[in-house]
């Protein structure tokens, strides 16, 4: 269990000098994840912001072996890496590595869903990390299946009408041994979940909430505050599912008003207009129902003091 910063390794897997926007939640999360991931390590990356900003040829920000193939097949490419190293180790021609897949919400919820499903079903030993910034940020902020109701995107100018896809339930339905949500605000929770994920012999999934200043129209210095508010409004609950058992990791007894989270983001400017009260109500209702369902699944009625991880 990592509880102090000095317990993290000194050698960074991703170097400064990459091209990410100031305040990019994804890069903060990726850095935290890589610090906690056990070595030896190989990273497989789906097409998306992370891939683009870290590898402008002839430069690379990666200090670990890194592979990008296409948008939708990171889980399949990682399956190949995993299977190959297994047999190469058997034949004395190589050795097994820990494998992390990074994909955005597009590469996970939408176009990447098939290959993710295939990899989970086949049981490859890897950690699939979805950094969720709730739209196709790399191509100019178009809606994805992860975009929440009411959010502006360049293809939902009046605010998205549909719900956000429940990716965690989809993943858990595959019977994975470990799936969890996390966000960079609670870094200890995040890094310990990464370390834990690798203790399972099979696929693990981490859904990381990653604020995007560019796509959310927020100030770069608000990223951590936003990832905190997402949790404290119950918009993005932190929980883990271990061998089918749900556990809420950060119990929000008295949630902050959702508006506090939404009003910081200019992508909700349309939603917060009086004429869209109904859509706002839909979003609030979804947030509440998600929490209630989670509470029921986790069988936790009281805030457990021991898992309160904020220091």
């Amino acid at each position, binding site marked *: 269990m990592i509880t102090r910063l000095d317990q993290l390794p000194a050698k960074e897997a991703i170097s400064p000098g990459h091209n990410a926007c100031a305040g990019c939640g994804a890069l903060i999360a990726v850095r935290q994840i890589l610090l906690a991931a056990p070595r030896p390590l190989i990273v497989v990356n789906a097409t998306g912001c992370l891939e683009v900003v870290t590898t402008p040829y002839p430069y690379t920000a990666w200090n670990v072996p890194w592979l990008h193939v*296409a948008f939708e097949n990171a889980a399949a*490419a990682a399956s190949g890496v995993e299977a*190959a*190293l297994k047999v190469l180790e058997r034949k004395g021609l190589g050795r097994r590595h820990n494998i992390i897949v990074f994909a955005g919400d597009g590469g996970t919820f939408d176009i990447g869903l098939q290959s993710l499903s*295939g990899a989970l079903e086949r049981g490859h030993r890897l950690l699939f990390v979805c950094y969720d910034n709730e739209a196709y940020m790399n191509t100019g902020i178009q809606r994805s299946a992860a975009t929440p109701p009411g959010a502006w995107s360049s293809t939902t100018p009046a605010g998205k009408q549909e719900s956000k896809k429940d990716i965690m339930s989809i993943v858990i339905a595959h019977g994975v041994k470990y799936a969890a949500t996390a966000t960079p605000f609670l870094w200890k929770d995040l890094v310990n979940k990464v370390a834990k994920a690798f203790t399972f012999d099979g696929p693990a999934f981490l859904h990381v909430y990653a604020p995007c200043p560019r796509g959310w129209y927020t100030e770069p210095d608000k990223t951590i505050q936003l990832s905190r508010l997402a949790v404290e409004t119950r918009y993005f609950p932190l929980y883990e599912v271990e061998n089918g058992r749900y556990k809420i990791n950060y119990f929000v007894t008295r949630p902050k008003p959702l508006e506090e989270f939404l009003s910081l983001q200019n992508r909700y400017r349309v939603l917060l207009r009086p004429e869209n009260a109904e859509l706002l109500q839909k979003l609030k209702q979804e947030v509440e129902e998600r929490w209630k369902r989670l509470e029921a699944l986790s069988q936790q009625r009281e805030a457990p003091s021991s898992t309160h991880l904020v220091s």
Partner: protein
Amino acid sequence: MLRQALLYLMSGNEAIAHAVMDADVDVVAAYPITPQTTIVEKLSEYVASGMLDAEFVPVESEHSALSVCLGASLTGARVFTATSSQGLALMHEILYIASGLRTPIVMAIANRALSAPINIHGDHSDIMGSRDAGWIQLFAENPQQAYDFTLIAYRVAEDNRVMLPVAVNVDGFTVSHCYEGVRVLGKEDARAFLPRTPRPRLEYETPITVGAMFSSMHYHVAKTEQAKALESSLNVVKEVFRSYPMREEGYDVVHAVNTDSPVMVVGLGGVMGTFRHLGRRMNVGVASLRLYRPFPAADLLPSLREAELIIVLDRAYSPGAPAPPLAADIKTLLHTAGLQTPVWSVVCGLGGHEIRLSMAEKLLQKALKAVREGAGANISFYLGEEVNTP
């Protein structure tokens, strides 16, 4: 010293699977599609019974099959997949990435028609749709070649001067499901023919970044280098073809007979056996391309130079194009060499449409007659319809 080669009764598909086993492949990833399926069924048996020490990855699509192969290949593993038709079309995007990342993947393609209308039988529509993906393209005419070319494919692909993926094409059903006696090298000789050569790979101690984002300028340079690598792989293919241990004389990239005939037939795949059979009897020349990409222009040209009429067989067509794929290649070759030999562009055998001996014979009789009468026109038609052409 080559051991005694063993003779087995095998289909083209089984011959490929046997070659993959002999090549000590590490990872097989595949999704079933007719008429490829029996290749990977056989391989899954070999893996399950311990005859082949490999990981068999039963993926959820052909797109993922090739993606698995890509990831696996970049760890230094020897990989294999097989597909046909719609499966190859679904892989299309990844075909370009496999060649662009210079991965020595070997894939067997049991060539089959593309939908719609849906049809499961053999033609070359699938591979011609992937013609420009930067893969080396071999065409086997029979199960023996299917076995031999699969081993040759690994030796070529993994050569440090090449580092490109190779497709081994066999005609769907007519070769993939045709049973013949096949001589096999056996594990020891095959593995001696295919030593493992080190190459850059994903490894923690020596991290590399594969699949980076390229600017226009760097992209242009990289693609030009890739194209040059494919072009110059011709010499390596020829070298490996010649050195293939089970044949004293090796293989030629172009197999030409009766080249002093005024009529030459050029084509790809199993149908060329039919034309060679007729060609011997009717004194017609037949040139069969065993290598299609890179195009062995210099090896083909001598057998075409003296011809008065050239028949090019295409088992695919290119709608709206001035000529179907192979005919367009041959016309370009002739033009470049300053030749104005008339070309009959014949599209035949689409969707497994049978190319009967009588049809082929009639075609050759017509061609010989045209030559005797001094007819010199470029014409295009579909085999089976040639009675309606001048």
